């Protein structure tokens, strides 16, 4: 009995040494686990009635938002591919191309005529931001990540100066 106990204890101790990052042990977890979710995920911005999610296909969203945005395009250095910018009232939508379609790269709110679905706008206080999205970051830069999207909020003297939704692409 004693031997068994020593064996178990030595095992547990060693197992303690083995702590570390988890590894994908099987092909099932490494190739099957990546599920394609058609559902919208991550932080989203609502422009009127249109929900803009990061990495979403841009064309239908732009058509849905309508209006008359200011348009700016920039060709990438050397390669084919056009980054596009649509400036609406209150926010700027930027896209990136993949093959022949454009996808949402970022949404930047630049004045307080628009706000996030959680109620944060330019001028909101630090406390409001933290109660909406959580603590973390510093008192001037807050970054929140969800799925493939990042919400970056910049503050100066305790009030919000910029709100940016950024797509995580890779």
């Amino acid at each position, binding site marked *: 009995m004693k031997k068994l106990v020593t064996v178990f204890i030595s095992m547990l101790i060693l197992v303690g040494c083995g702590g570390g990052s988890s590894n994908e042990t099987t092909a099932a977890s490494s190739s099957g686990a990546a599920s*394609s979710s058609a559902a919208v995920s991550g932080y989203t911005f609502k422009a009127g009635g249109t929900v803009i999610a990061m990495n979403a296909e841009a064309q239908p969203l732009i058509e849905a938002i309508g209006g008359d945005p200011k348009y700016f395009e920039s060709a990438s250095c050397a390669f084919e591919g056009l980054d596009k910018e649509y400036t609406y009232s209150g926010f700027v939508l930027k896209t990136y191309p993949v093959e022949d379609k454009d996808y949402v790269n970022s949404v930047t709110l630049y004045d307080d005529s628009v706000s996030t679905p959680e109620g944060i706008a330019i001028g909101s206080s630090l406390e409001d931001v933290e109660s909406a999205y959580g603590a973390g970051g510093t008192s001037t830069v807050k970054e929140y990540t969800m799925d493939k999207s990042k919400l970056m909020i910049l503050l100066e003297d305790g009030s919000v100066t910029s709100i940016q939704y950024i797509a995580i692409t890779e």
Partner: protein
Amino acid sequence: MLFTSYSFILFLTVMFLLYYAVPKKCQWMLLLAGSYCFYAYSGIHFLAFILLTTVSTWYSARRITRIQEQQAAYLKEHKASMDKEQKKRYKASMKKKTKRWMLTCILLNIGLLAVLKYTDFVISNINGIFHTGLTFMNFALPLGISFYTFQSMGYLLDVYRAKYPAQENAAKFALFVSFFPQVIQGPISRYNDLSGTLYEPHSLEWRNISYGIQRICWGFFKKLVIADRLLVAVKSLVSAPDEYMGVYVVLVIFFYAIELYADFTGGIDITIGIAQVFGVKLAENFERPFFSKNITEYWRRWHITMGTWFKDYIFYPISVCPWMLRLSKKSREVFGKAIGKRVPVYLATAIVWFTTGLWHGASWNFIVWGMLNFLVIVISQELEPLYAKFHNRFHVSGKTWYNAFQILRTFWLMGAIRILDVYRDVPLSFRQVGSIFTTANWNELFNGGVMRLGLTMPDYLVLVLGALVMLAVSLAGRSGSVRDKLAAKPVPVRYLVYYALILSILVLGAYGIGYDSSQFIYNQF
């Protein structure tokens, strides 16, 4: 270190050069040093685990042998003075001692493997059933733990059964456990087989080097040109199961079968080839498995050393252990002879397949996979009389077209079961296979669906040609060693083949930026 990485190739080159430069009697020591360097590369803290297994097994085996020798000497000395009863009691008490050592060592090592590998699986099941929120331990698995643990336990059991005496030299034994070509994915060697060539001195022999390198190249070809290329398509198909149903699942079965075959046998070819360059002989692990005509034959040809390990160290001991015999007797009394004689075999088989599944991975996918294999085996056993009647009536056995039918049947059956390897969970796997019969989208094969999986037309061409080459080599291998046949050809022909092989690996291999780097599927074992 991945086999197909620049650092490994460098490591191999250095090892090969040093091996034939050092004094012959130090060669095995060089292999030991190299194996430990190789192992440390995966994480220096992991050395503790393989060392624990090595030391505990070496020591326990030595003690067991000591007791057995003691027993033999004692019995010889007191042959005259002991009666039968006394001898029996003495043997029993000695057996008890050796058994204690054996069980302790097994408990320690299998226990360690179990805790490291299956804790999170157990936790996830507990969370699922009892709705608790236990946190996962996320233990990192030491490289090849499933392989070297089983190989060491096999050795221990052999010594316990007095098949051969324990290895006295701890360093030599350490080499047996950690021998780097096989530590990642086998073959699971038997000590009495491997120790023959592992420790003996080897002089520079052209044939070993040439054949070894040829085999290594062949393995690289299968792995880089075929397996890694196909993996791109398999990954696309499997990562969007809702999109790819019906005929696409058939593609998954087919592609994955070829991919796993190329990957696994390619890795083993590299392993055996490396050992051959060192003059060490490793057991074969595959024997043209896709030519099997039924499941039983398949498991004699696929991952051979795993099959024989489970047979020798799990199936037989369970079949003949006392409680099994009692159970068998009881069931004969209760259920009659027919069922009674099946109980031990089927129960032992079920246990074997359950543990085989579990050994492959800590998930229900693998357990179900194991049990499905068991089911098919049992069903084909039970259908034997029916088959016999059929063959009596129709005389098709042996005919070419019937052989082809059997081969295809086995290929697709094993492929369908194997699909549990790739899909996320069991229900999904069943649903996907079911969709083959319910979703009618065979036209997808012809309307460009396959061109959206990440492979281009030239890629498919390479795959088809590569598969044909594999097939040709397999067919040629039925009647003798392919390398022997090649060696018999004139020098220009031979060297043209080598040239083509090496060039095709370098040009067509799916390596470098632009291809997803992929590991041997068995690498986390």
